[in-house]
């Protein structure tokens, strides 16, 4: 099964483009069918943003809690660090104990960062 590395880029990634094309085809077919079958009778009332039946008030793009932005930053930090672990994970049985110690240092920094965020209150969502 490891002969994938000997295949050219087109051969290993080509099927993925076929799947993308096929998914697009399904979506376009659905849209076409819907526009052929569905009624077209737009009225101003139908186009009102749904707000439980009452008149829509104010802008829809309301201010969001700063917690969401904090979560995004946390995600960038931790997910990118986690992605760094993948190349190491593939090779580390060849790297041996040295690799394990290096990764221990890396994970200690990661855990320290998590503890720091926790203590700073970045992981409190109820308020």
């Amino acid at each position, binding site marked *: 099964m490891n002969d994938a590395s000997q295949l050219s880029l087109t051969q*290993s990634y080509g099927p993925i483009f076929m799947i993308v094309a096929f998914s697009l085809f399904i979506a376009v077919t659905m849209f076409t069918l*819907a526009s052929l*079958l569905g009624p077209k009778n737009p009225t101003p009332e139908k186009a009102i943003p749904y*707000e439980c039946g009452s008149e829509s008030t104010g802008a829809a793009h309301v201010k969001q809690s700063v917690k969401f932005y904090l979560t995004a930053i946390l995600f960038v930090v931790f997910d990118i660090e986690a992605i760094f672990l993948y190349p190491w*994970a593939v090779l580390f049985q060849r790297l041996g104990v040295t690799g394990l110690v290096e990764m221990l240092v890396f994970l200690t920094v990661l855990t320290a960062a998590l503890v720091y965020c926790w203590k700073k209150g970045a992981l409190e969502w109820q308020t």
Partner: protein
Amino acid sequence: MNALAHGASYGALIILTLLTTVAMGVWFERKFAGRMQSRLGPTMVGPVGLLQSVADVVKLLNKEDIIPRDADRGLFTLAPVLAALLSLGAAAVVPFSSTVVAADLDIGVIWVVALGGLTVIATFAAGWSSNNKFALLGAMRGIAQSVSYGVPLVLSVLVPVILAGTMSLSGIVAWQTRHHWFALWPVIPGLPALGLFFLAMLAESNRIPFDIPEAESELVAGVTTEYTGAKFVLFYMAEYVHTLVGSAVASVLFLGGWDGPIAPGLHWMVAKTLALFVAVYWVRWSLLRYRSDQLMALCWRRLTPLGVGLVLLASAWALFAPGGPA
């Protein structure tokens, strides 16, 4: 060219099978939920209601396509297409047997995780372009949830990668065929990693108890509030395909994929995938929805440290265990 033709034909086959399975899965879920609540579920369309999903799709295609006032029309149309494309694209690298696989990438694991993570783009595009407060709130909560649970997901997937020493999904199955399933041995990083992956998958595909973006009791229908007809079908389909592909990936990573005695490999793979798929329904119709802040706290304070611990245990096992991975 031969490999390309092989991949393309299997790709088409896998997508068609997935879509059929999703249609039947929706029927099964409604029957299953009905039985759990002492109801019958769908009975009218076809024998024992089997054609209910087909009827639903036909009905939805007959609905008017409504785009709300002041919506970003292009983005509003693109979002459901993107959702469907990303969930089906992840299926491209999943090996259903040693031969039934569309694209056997060396970095299959990364591909699955990356496409699962990208679905937040579709969620956000839908929420932002709808010009609706419920949709935007649902999208923001959904993104916060999906990106947060991406961290434990990535960490849990690392466990089989470390033990097998490869990122190729079929390579991981081949390793398990030669040795043992990761959920069974080594039990300690293996089984908790499967649990962690399952939880994170539920959260990423927005399933109860983690279906915050939809939360119909508080946000109407979340990001899909303004969607009608074909676009709604695409969103709905994408969600089920995401769950189904997630179940398939879980069986590949932890349950030995197509490995099993007597029956052909494909049967085993399908059986394992469907068992996990049913488990998702079981959870869905048994539990209540988590609150958004509980959900985030669970992810960052419990699951992420657990994931880091599992990665350390797995690497220690791989290096020091007697008779561990060679």
